[in-house]
């Protein structure tokens, strides 16, 4: 049976950390999530966020391997297939979110949930969370982080462009704040799904 849960979450997160010239209001774009939409695989999810390749695959795979309790399923292969429906920026972060939701939907035991957050730094140092394709192209640097749900630890990072270490700390702090919203969205969408059935 296919359960459709559309959770609209327009979130605004104020970023007051660091020494950037204007305090930017970082907002994440509109989220939506559908679960269990394919009947054959054990679990599936499509993650829409706002509107790669071996290295991207390896990043996602290593992040999943770090959280999945593989020892509970010996001699088992867990295949995560990600199909890009549309790319409107922050693709790697969206892939990470989709992978996590699919693993939850499949019932794979994990030690923590994880989420992906992307941020872009433009030429005058303004931080933009969850950049669109246009913002990514014009940015001086684009940083994508995978954070876990237990302690907001950094599981994976992939960066493009030049930036200083203070800017890195700023981006990391902003990503950790934004990850809270993503985890809350996971919880809400799962609650909604299981409360209906």
């Amino acid at each position, binding site marked *: 049976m296919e359960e459709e849960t559309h959770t609209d979450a327009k979130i605004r997160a104020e970023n007051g950390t660091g020494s950037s010239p204007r305090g930017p209001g970082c907002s994440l774009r509109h989220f939506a999530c559908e679960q269990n939409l394919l009947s054959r695989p054990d679990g599936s999810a499509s993650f829409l966020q706002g509107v790669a390749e071996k290295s991207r695959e390896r990043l996602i795979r*290593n992040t999943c391997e770090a959280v999945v309790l593989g020892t509970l399923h010996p001699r088992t292969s867990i295949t995560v297939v990600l199909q890009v429906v549309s790319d409107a920026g922050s693709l790697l972060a969206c892939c990470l979110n989709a992978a996590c939701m699919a693993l939850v939907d499949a019932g794979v035991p994990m030690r923590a949930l994880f989420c992906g957050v992307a941020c872009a730094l433009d030429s005058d140092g303004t931080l933009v969370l969850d950049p669109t394709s246009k913002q990514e192209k014009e940015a001086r640097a684009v940083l994508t982080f995978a954070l876990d749900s237990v302690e907001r630890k950094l599981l*994976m*990072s992939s*960066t493009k462009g030049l930036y200083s270490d203070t800017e890195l700390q700023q981006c990391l702090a902003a990503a950790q704040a934004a990850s809270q919203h993503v985890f809350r969205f996971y919880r809400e969408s799962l609650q909604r799904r299981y409360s209906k059935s």
Partner: protein
Amino acid sequence: MAAGFKTVEPLEYYRRFLKENCRPDGRELGEFRTTTVNIGSISTADGSALVKLGNTTVICGVKAEFAAPSTDAPDKGYVVPNVDLPPLCSSRFRSGPPGEEAQVASQFIADVIENSQIIQKEDLCISPGKLVWVLYCDLICLDYDGNILDACTFALLAALKNVQLPEVTINEETALAEVNLKKKSYLNIRTHPVATSFAVFDDTLLIVDPTGEEEHLATGTLTIVMDEEGKLCCLHKPGMFPPLQS
């Protein structure tokens, strides 16, 4: 006795050393292995360098060829890196198409070149819209003992500094390129990115320049590439490995 313990419980054996803030090969936690560089050893390449970080050996050869530029970037040349991890460097690699680790390393080097702007691609232009240089950078690992990314970045930088390109003029009448092999000039290297790799142990300890064994026992690895102004070109943290059951 120690060798037996090391085989049975490699992680515990390692932890005993880490408690004393040192490692089995006698290094401190923040110490690099002995590094040697040999520049210009390959006479058939336009630029070459051999780097040894302890036992890890990487050789880089740069060949320059002509190419037509793409239509959306008519004044930009190309720098094409390729990292090869052949079976001779370690028993974990098989012959055949490049494995995942080689592809990830190639992508990493391409990202470092792109992000750090080590060479301005416009410098490789001979005639806009018609002819540009393409630099094929081949990095081959001869001995794999951990920390391949640092060695590759270093070898690439050293080889690019060694590259000498001949002067090329386009003959107006025949529209052909004329190469003057007697007049060669070095490339304009704008920044000098340096990679530093760390291995993370038990989520708390950071160890610089891990050997092959240390990489295998670690919880995760982290590579940071910085240029001389202190700007970060790349922060490569490809996830954590699942903790080894000890």
